[in-house]
């Protein structure tokens, strides 16, 4: 009969079970570990109004960006008023109740597809955040760049928030923006699981100069409890992942975990983009008295994949549901991008960003499920080859879902109004 100790001191022999490939630098000096499962994650924002979810506030004085007037948008793009009205009419057969009106894609110059070619149309202008407060992390170590945190810390670098913070998808109090709800519901229902391991070498977890924080994936699903929250204390096995893993050197001070050096990581983004690459990433997390963990992990993320993620989720649907013209998102991200990996003179392909994390105490096991993890190590070397799962059961091409059975195909040369005389009556 095996005996399983709830101990926190483990030797490197347990790592040997994983095979030599796993361990980078076997650490026999780890004295404590705390392990968690992420029960909520959303881009770090700041909601500047006192009520509601879209109300005017210090962050967005005019409130969340309103829904575009799509008829005007189409007319500005060169369609006739009659055509614009026809395209927007839900009753018309070229508009799918599920995938939207594909012709909406073609409003660039010469009817270019604006989803894949956002610069083919002038910047529609996404109103940015004009407030001075934001949640996030000081990524460049410069207090003079960036926002002030809600607790008064200066230098928070979060241009992602600046660019997109007034957009309906992201704007709102904690856990209430439509984007946050959408993706976290999916995660909490089992779409994916992220676990966090914190390990340190000192005697006091709350004050330790040699700490490492590891973010890993797990195939074990979270379980909801009787009141709809995620239940604590479940067990999760680390599932080695070729892409999604993040290891941060850090220290703790009065229970607050702060990175001591930047790291380049890739995590699972709670979005359609899925890949969250973060350069010069850092963590700022707090171990609370009730055992939970809350805080931020942030870095510079490539901005174009963010845009592409929305496009590949069907531009036609995203635009209407989230009240945005997608090219505006492209322009806004481009304009606010603030980091170049190749150095100060290079193209700013990355934008400062942070993910706000809430995590609950959980048991995290080695990939074989036999032992609790006792240190923060990398498992990439033993990860299986990752095949990207298709996001949907239908095919998205250039931001729309083509319908091969339709007589009329959307495109730059599409004839909008049907030829019959009866069409006139539908415009009423």
């Amino acid at each position, binding site marked *: 009969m095996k005996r*399983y100790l709830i101990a926190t001191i483990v030797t490197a022999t347990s790592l040997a079970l994983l095979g030599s490939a796993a361990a980078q630098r076997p650490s026999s000096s780890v004295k404590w570990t705390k392990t968690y499962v992420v029960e909520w994650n959303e881009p770090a924002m700041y909601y500047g109004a006192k009520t509601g979810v879209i109300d005017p506030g210090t962050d967005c004085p005019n409130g969340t960006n309103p829904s575009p007037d799509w008829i005007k948008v189409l007319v500005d793009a060169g369609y006739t008023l009659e055509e614009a009205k026809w395209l927007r009419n839900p009753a018309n057969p070229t508009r799918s109740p599920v995938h939207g009106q594909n012709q909406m894609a073609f409003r660039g110059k010469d009817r270019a597809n604006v989803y894949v070619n956002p610069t083919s149309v002038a910047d529609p202008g996404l109103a940015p955040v004009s407030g001075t407060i934001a949640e996030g992390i000081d990524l460049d170590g410069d207090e003079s760049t960036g926002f002030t945190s809600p607790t008064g810390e200066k230098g928070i670098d979060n241009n992602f928030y600046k660019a997109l913070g007034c957009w309906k998808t992201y704007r709102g109090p904690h856990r209430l923006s439509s984007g946050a709800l959408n993706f976290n519901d999916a995660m909490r229902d089992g779409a994916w699981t992220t676990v966090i391991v914190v390990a340190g070498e000192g005697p006091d977890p709350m004050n330790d100069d040699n700490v490492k924080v590891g973010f890993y994936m797990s195939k074990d699903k979270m379980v909801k*409890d009787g009141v709809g929250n995620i*239940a604590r204390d479940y*067990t999760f096995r680390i599932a080695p992942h070729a892409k999604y893993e993040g290891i941060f050197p850090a220290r703790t001070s009065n229970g607050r975990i702060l990175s001591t050096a930047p790291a380049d990581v890739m995590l699972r983004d709670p979005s359609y983009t899925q890949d969250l690459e973060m350069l010069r990433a850092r963590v700022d997390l707090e171990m609370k008295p009730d055992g939970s963990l809350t805080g931020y992990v942030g870095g510079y993320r490539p901005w174009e994949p963010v845009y592409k993620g929305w496009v590949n989720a069907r531009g036609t649907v995203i635009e209407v549901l989230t009240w945005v013209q997608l090219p505006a998102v492209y322009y806004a991200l481009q304009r606010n991008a603030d980091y170049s990996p190749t150095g100060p003179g290079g193209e700013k392909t990355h934008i400062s960003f942070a993910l706000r994390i809430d995590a609950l105490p959980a048991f995290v096991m080695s990939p*074989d499920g*036999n032992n609790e993890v006792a240190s923060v190590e990398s498992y990439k070397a033993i990860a299986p080859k990752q095949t990207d799962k298709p996001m949907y059961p239908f095919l998205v091409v250039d931001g729309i879902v083509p319908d091969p059975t339709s007589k009329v195909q959307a495109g730059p040369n599409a004839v909008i109004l049907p030829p019959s005389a009866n069409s006139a009556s539908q415009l009423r």
Partner: protein
Amino acid sequence: MAGLAAVGALTLVGGFALVTSSAAQTPPPKPSDGLTTKVALRRVTETQYRHTIADVFGPEIKISARFEPEQRVDMLLAIGSAQLSLTSSGFEQYFALATSISDQVVSEKQRTTSVPCKPADPAGADDACARRFLTAYGERLFRRPLTESEVLARLRTAAAGAKQSGDFYAGLKLSLTSLLLAPEFLFRVETAEPDPANPQEFRLDAYTKASRLSFLLWDSAPDQELLAAARSGAIHTQDGLTKQLNRMISSPRFEDGARAFFTDMLQLDGFENLVKDPTIYPKFNQTVSDSAKEQTLRTTVDLLVDKRRDYRDLFTSNETFINRPLASVYQIPFASSGDWAPYTFPLSSERSGILTEVAFLSLFAHPGSSSPTRRGIKVREIFTCQVTPDPPADVDFSKVQASTTGTVRERLLNHMGTAGCASCHRPIDPLGLALEHFDGLGQLRTMENGAAIDVNAELGSVKFEGAQGLGQYLHDNPRVPACLVRNVFAYGVGRKPDAQDADYLRGQATAFANDGYRFPDLVVQIASSPQFFKVAVPNGAERTSLAAAATAPLKTSKTSEGANP
């Protein structure tokens, strides 16, 4: 249109009396009359029903129905089942279930294996083929051979059905349904016959004995081999009986029997509808509930049957099994890729055997809190066979200080100091107070309302502390194994032991101790003793002539011939 006048009035109010008055006058039967008598009617339980269907027709037969609730009498459902009958809605459920089972058994796919012959004309009746089918399954379902009239009745149904629907198999389905609905299947009819060796005495007939063995050991109807031992009369001999017992106790099917027994004795039937307040115990859900029951059954069967350990170790051994949901309630890691994994609680967990598993702790508590009194009552009832009387109706609790501060212990200590309450609460509450480090879901907690919980307990002159102290106390208490002996016996015979059984039970308890408290041996001991088959003739039982109750293949001998086939 009639008025239900005077006749009706009598009928409605006194109708009940009319039915039974005729029976009251019959004198009790005497063996010298040469007649059989039915000594008990025990309703088949849900697990017995399911096991029987799986045994007879195969495990692929799906059973989905609601079974009538059972009633606990004298600490056991098995005793209650001897007192229950069916309600209309219960019968409805059985009807639908019987139809569904027959449909599956005689379905096109199944009939090649389930029907032993082919009809002469598939669109019409075929008595010969139907008879083969019915006698074979009838014997398994009624747990004895069918009488000729029973066979004829079903043949009529089969023929009528075949003619009406133009399909032999439709008729077969109907006749099988009528077997599955018969009281001879739904109830265990225990029959006594005059004992050829002692003409002044009754003995249980061979098939009744076979059923008792089979339901005790395997929680199911007798299999072919056991039926054969009954048919040949071997079961009436000590050698024949021993042979069957040894066969059955070494079979993996004994685990089913053990599970059924302990589900009854440990009162684990409360799990189907256990409710907890989700705001206070959010981790509780149906999966946790089902897992808790399974954990306790696994632990018990592993310790007592697989490992043949000392029964008393159940209260002190911390070797158990857990799964992922339970691990979260126990706040321990689940180190396995399978569903269940063995786990041993360390001393520091304060756990002690089955008393501190989630099952016992959560069943005998309130939706939102623990309950020392409830737990104390159940510890006594389940493990020492001591039933607590109901509290007096007019007890006035206003004398007891209601308290929202401090611990439950203080409130209960008040009970134990109060005159009208102490006599019951003194032997009960300390047992539950020792378990107070576990809340209403079974989670470890050492503080309540900011105060440390004191788990010291005093029972008369015995003192112990915490669950481990309680476990040791039960381990050392001779009432505990004696209670198990009582329960195995009562469960097997389906009645409350009476004064005449007292000496026997004492002897069995001694043998159990001398043998090292091994449960499988206890079952064999009891089942092979004459007391297990002792006949208790109920009052007013009518007599039946042996000839009238003739079972087709058996020799229908009268006692005067002294036949012992």
